[in-house]
């Protein structure tokens, strides 16, 4: 183990200095079999080059901050094992389809706006008072939306989505999956308020059902399924009597 080494090639870009992104190569020890790509970046930052910038926090695949292109595929760098790439070099780039702020840091403000636009909160005609206790909901009812509630907002699906790549007005996989998460929740009555956002031009109809989003999703959310289901909903809206789906 001790003398194994791995080459990490990574995107460097500092808008203060660089006109365009460039690649930089680092050869570092592959010091532990459990080492992930994020560990390699941390090794570089701590020991070789303190100026390399990237986001991370939990190191356990749940905070969603460490998404990067690893050898061309969107990955959580904390869950991408070096041993799966070694001895070949590993190419680490910022997620595709997003503006780059610095090195491996992408600008995700666009998603934050989209997230808000789908009203990701429980909407009810009439709130029940806290004193009345919880809404009754069975585990089976939760199963209806569970998958879509597992989204960690990691943006891997956006990086994989060819439609978003061409037109970033497209609401995109995660936002649609999250809208679906609320629409399917037995406690929610907000379908009618969310449909216009989803049904408009930049909504579900943009999706050509490539399905790449579901392939790269690290949490099994299957946004492609959410998009297909939402297409059905938006058609039904014109068929069902007004207010029927509340």
């Amino acid at each position, binding site marked *: 183990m001790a003398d194994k080494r791995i080459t990490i090639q990574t995107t460097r870009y500092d808008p203060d200095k660089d006109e365009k992104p460039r690649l930089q190569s680092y050869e570092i020890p592959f010091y532990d079999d459990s080492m992930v790509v994020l560990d390699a970046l941390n090794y570089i930052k701590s020991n070789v080059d*303190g100026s390399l*910038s990237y986001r991370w926090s939990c190191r*356990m*695949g749940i905070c969603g901050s460490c998404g990067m292109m690893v050898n061309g595929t969107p990955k959580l760098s904390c*869950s991408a094992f070096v041993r799966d790439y070694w001895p070949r070099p590993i190419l680490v780039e910022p997620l595709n389809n997003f503006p780059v702020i610095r090195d491996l840091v992408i600008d995700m403000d666009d998603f934050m706006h989209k997230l808000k636009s789908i*009203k990701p*909160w429980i909407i009810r005609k009439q709130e029940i008072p*806290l004193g009345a206790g919880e809404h009754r909901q069975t585990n089976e009812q939760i199963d209806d939306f569970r998958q879509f509630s597992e989204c960690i*907002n990691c943006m891997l699906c956006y990086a994989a989505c060819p439609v978003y790549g061409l037109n970033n007005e497209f609401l995109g996989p995660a936002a649609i999956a999250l809208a679906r998460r609320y629409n399917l929740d037995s406690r929610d009555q907000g379908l009618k308020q969310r449909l216009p956002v989803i049904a408009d031009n930049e909504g579900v109809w943009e999706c050509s059902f490539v399905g790449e989003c579901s392939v790269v999703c690290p949490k099994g959310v299957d946004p492609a399924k959410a998009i297909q289901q939402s297409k059905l909903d938006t058609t039904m809206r014109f068929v069902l009597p007004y207010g029927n789906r509340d």
Partner: protein
Amino acid sequence: MDFESYDVLVVGGGLAGIRAAIAAVETNPRVKVGMVSKVYPMRSHTVSAEGGAAAALRPEDSYENHAFDTVKGSDYLADQDVVEAFVREAPIELIQMEHWGCPWSRDPDGKISARPFGGMTTWRTCFAADKTGFHMLHAVFQTSLKYPQITRHDEAFVTKLLVEDSRCVGVVALDMKTGRFDAITAKSVILATGGLGRTYAFTTNGNICTGDGMSLAYRAGVGLKDMEMVQFHPTGLPFTGILITEAVRGEGGYLLNNEGERFLKRYVPNKMELGPRDIISRAMMTEFEEGRGFEGPHGKYLHLDVRHLGEKVIDRKLPFMRELGREFVGIDIVKEPIPVRPVQHYMMGGIDADISGATPMAGLYAAGECANVGLNGANRLGSNSLSECLVFGAAAGRAAADYSSAAKPVTANPVDAILWDEARRVEVAYLEKKGGSERIGAIREEMQHEMDAGAGVFRTKEGLQKLIERLGGLRERFGRIKIEDTSKTFNTELTSAMELDFMLEISQTIAVSALAREESRGAHARRDFPQRNDEKYLKHSLVFSRDAAKPRLEYRDVHIENFKPQARTY
């Protein structure tokens, strides 16, 4: 340099911070609330909480039982008026979370379900599978988006509190994207900056848990309470420190030594795997010392075995654990035992705050893990923390909103000067610094190893003295650091350096408080003083900054009501 003004400014976008922001708005819909966070709120470390949130919701439970378990768990260092308020509010808060969309796991009748947890005498830990923190955080964050009164400053790193006439009137924050320093002023400030696990090498805490808020308050002259009380969780994965939730034991998992023995029968015979964390962590260390641990590439470990629960239960109740085992250890927990060892996990100590989250400084409040309102004493019970974030986050939000309605507006003048000084300080200390040679990565690593060694599960006078000395040496070396990154844009070397600065300071407060408490209580286990000493130390410690090398200590009586201190056996 920019200037913004709020009624209430929340620092932190974790569970406590967001709950506080919503509470402020609901207390008074006219208040303008700002929320600053160094990461996007949904990245906050609350996201990693797995096991559940405690509340006496079930008919067979009672406030009194929850209160007693909490006080006993705290080794009688909890303030009982605070505990009382907590157990009454916690059920309401969990129902509120349900109304906000948290997908709590349910009983067959559709009500919120509960599971057993360490140190709790009945099933009162409500859960959303084994991703409770993730679901709570996303639910409360997404809900917060519907309040137009809340303005977020995402990826803004707070470097200093603005204090004018002994009153907190906002913060100075570095906008990560642009490198600009802003004075964000407010009539009141709520610190909700989370834990400090990264002061240790082996921790379940994420990279952002660097004790910033504690350090900010400490520098402003506010005391830090019970800083010697650091929790070690029994079951972390070797190497990564990733947590295997206590829910694994709650659902019936066994802890086994290298003889295949459920060794806890020799330590907590009546509770076994459901004993409290401090005692089980010590039991595991003792097993290691007596040669009954396994030896692995990343040190000693024991086994946590869930094979007997069967695939169905595991997939329904512990799916994330199976995922973590597969992803990070390469094992299927349905078929193999999980390697585990004690790991730094949680900070009981924190910013001195009262039952409403108010600190002794006018206009300054604190909530969540960075605060010490007196709930957890010397040992927090698992699953009380998420509920604490809700109960005391909401309390702080309400108190700050009320305070702000009556408070004087903030004047721009002195604030401008402070802002300018602070921006200049950072430039001189870091960005324009020449000739440094020390790597922050190296200093950080050494600090972490010193903390593991000196302020770990077991402590001694010699170990703590050595730690204090070593931390002093590291502080000196910090004066000679080298910053390679001079960019204005997303300069994470700069923020890491400032985090290390915070951590060196906070580590010192832990070591000093631990050295002074010459007894063993809860998580604070002194080999040289193995007994609890109520006569001398049934007291909160408070540490104040005098100078970095020699903080000043005070003690304050614990608030005791119905539960008189007794021997703590399980």
